[in-house]
Each structure stands twice: as C-alpha cells, then as structure tokens.
C-alpha cells in the first residue's frame, strides 16, 4: 500500500504538468475548432461548424452557391504529405547507408562517427535552417563557389523552391532516421550475413533478403520520426520555401497572427493534422502488434 502511495506521489507532478499542459489544451483545441471566430481574432463561445466548413467546402465567393469541395486547403495538405514523404525517402536513401557504415565501424571509432553525426543536430533548428538558407541563396557562398569554378554562369535559384524545402527538411530530421537504424544495425547479428554469404548470396542479395527484413523495425521507426515532424514543419517551408511551397505549418501559423487570424479555423486545421498523425501512428502500432 505504501508502495502505491509513494508511486502515486512520484508520478503526480508528471501527470499534473503534462496532463494540464498537453492533454487539456489538445481537448480544448478540439472544442475551439467548433467555435465561432471573433471579429478581432480569438473566439466567441458559440457552436459553429464554420471552421470545418471553410476547410472542406466552398460556397462560392459570397457564400450563396451550393456546397462544393474546397480544394485549396486539401491541396495544401496533399502537398505537405508529398513533401514529407519525399523528405522521408531522401533521409532513408542517405540515412540507411550512413547508419550501416557507422554501426559497422570498430568500437573505438564508432563513438567518434556517432558524435560527428549528432553534433549538428544539437544546433538550434532555426540556426541550422538559417545557415542553410544563407548557403544556398542566389548571392550566397554556394553559388559564388560554383560560379568561381566556372561550373555555372548564373546563380542557381535554389531558395523558394521545393528542392530547398526538401533540403531543409532533410537537414532538420536526418538524425531521426539515422539513430533508430543505427540502433537496429548494432543489434544485427553479423553471423546472419556470414551465413548468407556461406550459402552463396552476393552482398546486395544479402542486403535485400536478409538485412533489410531483419532491420525493418528500425527503418520504420526512422521513417515515422521523420515523416511526422515533416508534416507539421514550419521553419523549413517558411524560411526556405515560397508561395508555391505553402505547407500546413505555415497555414496554421497564419491563423494566429494578429487580427487576420481565425482561431477556430487554425484549431480545425490542427485537428486535421493531428488526425493524420494519429492514423499513421495507429497503422504503425497495428503493424507492430500483428507481428507478435
């Protein structure tokens, strides 16, 4: 009995803080998405489906036409999913060989490689994104460098493009892909590769048939850890992208800026985003569960 009481006491602060500052706010956010927008920004406590209506449906310029699907916001979501997926793929293509390489170094140098790859991650994301922007700008060092080498004549327009956002997302979340894969590869039994080679498999066949299936949980974890934050990313699209690359994060941010803001709409968009994330996580949990 004393044990239970002690444990409850120890966990109380955690429950209090996270419960009050996360659970309740999220519930509140759900409520807000069903409220009416106030004139000056903020909300009026009156039930309304206006936010969701605005998101999914259009009723013409003056609101008097029959409801049709509003594609604007759905398109933004679709584009964000696309961007996040591409970023995840990029991280995977680069992250897997990197994780494998580091995990197969001798223990002495492995720590150094790990250290090297995690250090940039610890630099403030804002600063990293700003640095990237600085590097690839039209009159930035990269273009200067390429021009000086006579590789190009005019600066490459790298910022305000999808590519820049991709690069930004990759830059932001790469370690999230590398570290879970690294952990899985470290646990990988080299004897399996030896057995495959012993049984006449080539390196790449072994990779495809043996290594990837065995290391899959790490890969999946890495993909989720990159995809989910990328979906709701704000800094990379905002600083590196332009009007063409407007994503969910910017859309939400916009709703809470000053008097043009639309809080219920912002809450509604956040709800849609969270639902998306929950679906991804549920799929993952289900896939993990069925394997048992």
């Amino acid at each position: 009995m004393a044990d239970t009481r002690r444990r409850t006491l120890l966990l109380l602060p955690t429950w209090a803080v996270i419960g009050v500052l996360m659970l309740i706010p999220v519930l509140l956010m759900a409520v807000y998405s069903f409220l009416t927008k106030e004139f000056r920004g903020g909300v009026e406590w009156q039930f309304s489906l206006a936010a969701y209506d605005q998101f999914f449906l259009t009723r013409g310029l003056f609101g008097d036409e029959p409801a049709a699907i509003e594609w604007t916001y759905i398109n933004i979501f679709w584009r964000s999913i696309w961007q996040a997926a591409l970023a995840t793929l990029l991280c995977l293509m680069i992250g897997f060989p990197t994780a494998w390489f580091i995990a197969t170094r001798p223990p002495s140098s492995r720590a150094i490689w790990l250290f090297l790859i995690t250090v940039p991650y610890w630099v403030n994301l804002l600063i990293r994104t700003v640095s990237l922007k600085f590097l690839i700008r039209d009159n930035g060092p990269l273009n200067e460098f390429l021009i000086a080498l006579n590789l190009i004549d005019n600066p490459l327009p790298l910022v305000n493009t999808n590519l820049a956002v991709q690069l930004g997302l990759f830059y932001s979340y790469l370690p999230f892909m590398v570290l879970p894969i690294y952990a899985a590869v470290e646990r990988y039994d080299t004897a399996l590769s030896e057995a495959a080679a012993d049984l006449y498999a080539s390196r790449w066949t072994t990779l495809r048939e043996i290594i990837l299936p065995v290391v899959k949980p790490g890969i999946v974890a890495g993909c989720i850890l990159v995809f989910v934050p990328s979906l709701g990313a704000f800094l990379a699209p905002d600083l590196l992208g332009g009007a063409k690359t407007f994503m969910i994060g910017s859309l939400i941010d916009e709703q809470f800026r000053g008097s043009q803001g639309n809080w219920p709409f912002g809450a509604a968009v956040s709800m849609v985003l969270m639902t998306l994330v929950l679906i991804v996580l549920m799929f993952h949990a289900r896939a993990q569960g069925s394997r048992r």
Partner: protein
Amino acid sequence: MGIAVDIRHAVKRYGTVTALHDVSLAIDDNAFFTLLGPSGCGKTTLLRLIGGFEETDGGEILLFGQDIAHLEPNQRPVNTVFQNYALFPHMSVLENVAFGLKMKGLDTAARTARAGRMLEMVHLSGYADRLPSQLSGGQQQRVALARALAPEPRVLLLDEPLSALDLKLRQAMRVELKTLQEENGITFIFVTHDQEEALTMSDRIAVMHAGTIQQLGTPREIYEAPVNRFVADFIGETNILEAEVHAVSQLTATLSLAGQTVTCPAAAITPGRHHVSIRPERVTLAASGLAATVERVIYLGTDLHVITRLSTGAEMRLRMQNAGRVTPPEPGAAVHLHLEEGALRLLAD
C-alpha cells in the same frame, strides 16, 4: 582419398595480436577432423579462414588443390554451421534450409523438394513452416545443419555447434553428426573446446594452443602419446612429474624418476631434466615399484580416484575401477606404484 583442405603456413593477425602463427595442416577427404583447444587458441580463426570470413595475412589455403585464399565466402563450395546457428529470423524453417539452393539458382519446386528431404534427414519434417524463434535449441541446431548440408558442400565447417545444448542432447547429437558424416562422405571440420567430444567423434584431431598446432593425430595417439605438457594436460587427466633423462636411444629413453630408474618410449629430446606424463588409469597398486603414501581416496561410482604422494613430494593420482571386490587403500597407507609398460611418456616442453 585425397586431401580436402590443405593449409600451408597460415598466418593471421589482429592488430598487434597474432592469432595464427604459421599453421600448416592437411585434412583428408571424407574425414571427421577436429580442431581442439581452449578459447583463444585460434581454432575458430582457422575455421573462419577456411570458410572465407577472414583473410589470411600469409600462407595458402587449398581446397582440393585449388587456392581459395582470396575467394569470397559465397564463391567457396564450403558451408558452415555457426555456433549460434544464425538462422534467418524472418524466414520459415523451410525457407532457411532452401536459402543456399535459392542462391544457386534452383527453381522453387526443386528447392522445396530438396529442403524437404534435408528436414527429413534431421527429423524435422513437421516443422517446415515454423519460425526459428518457435524452435528449441536442439531443433534450431538441426535446422542449421540441414541448411548447411542442403547445397551439397564437399566440406562442412562446424563451429562449436553443440556448445549451447544440454548434456543429454549433446551426447545424442554427437552420434547423429558422426553418422551423418559417415553416411554422406563429406569432410567435416569440427571445432570444439570439449575434449571428450573430440575424442569420441574424430578421425583425427589437431590440438591447438596460442595460435599453433601442438599435436596432430588420431584420438588414441593424442591421448596415449601426448608430445608435450600442454596436450598431456589438456586432454583428460594426467600425472606430470619431473625426471632426469640419462640416455636416449632409437626406441627407448632411460631416466630417473623419484629415485627409481625406468625406461620409456623415446622422444626427440636430449638428456637432462624433463617432464614425463602418465595417465592415472595406467598406474596401479603393486607389491613393488615407486614408494608412495596414500593421501586421499575419492569415490566416483564407477572408479576410485586414489591420490598419493611420492617420496619426492610429488603427487601421483591413480584411477582404479571400482570392481566390487577391490578393497580401497586407507589414507596414510604406504603403497607401491607400478607404471604400466610403455605408458610413461616423455614430454617436450
């Protein structure tokens, strides 16, 4: 019967540590050959060199006359049973066994048929669709065996395959492995640290220590005629005593042992102080011989272990069969020890 594996002056280094010093060895085809030694002696390193998982730093490895030292493991017609089995966890038992066949290009029907036959051979036919995690240690071991035999290698390498099994299972598997080897006519190269295993299964044994081969011979030769202190000590139990060698002829050597002059089979040594070895079961109580005092008698069920002390202070252990009508000697009794003819061996230390 030719030479299956011929190792010539193999050297292997790991940084500053030399795992194999100039090891040379010829393994006959169709033989059950064992590499025996304590951990760290280089036996597994040697096996891995043959399998292709490590590269030599010197020397040659010939497989049926062909130099394979620079071939990748998937280019050598040699298969391995790994110590922890290394069964592919995401594949069924059947898929595991058929893997090598798949890599060699057999079509699905042929693969499944042959894999099925292999599973029959190791008595696991009903387990084809199970995952390795659903099998016991002994079953996993047999799957590993079936998987390695499926591609019909000419040489099979076994890296301490029985060490993870409990005693009864191990003993049963020893018989199975030996039978398999004899029936299939494949060369088995078996690595173990368990000398009883080596003695019971092998046609020939290479006793290894600190990266060199200490002695190469049949189980009988290794046991009854150990060439040096390490082999004498490592295999079974033995008594090791100091002796003064006076003369060495073609066939015999004359030496003084605990005050008595005895002869023993010759060895390639010069007169002087050396060590000799005699197995406890070759020493008997007699009316005359080396004078000794009984210190302890240990009852082992099948045998009696008698620990005596010679006049020089050296210990001499005897093994007597507990044949019912024998009265065991009392501690403190003065006895005489007879050393069996030819059982005393000179050791080159």
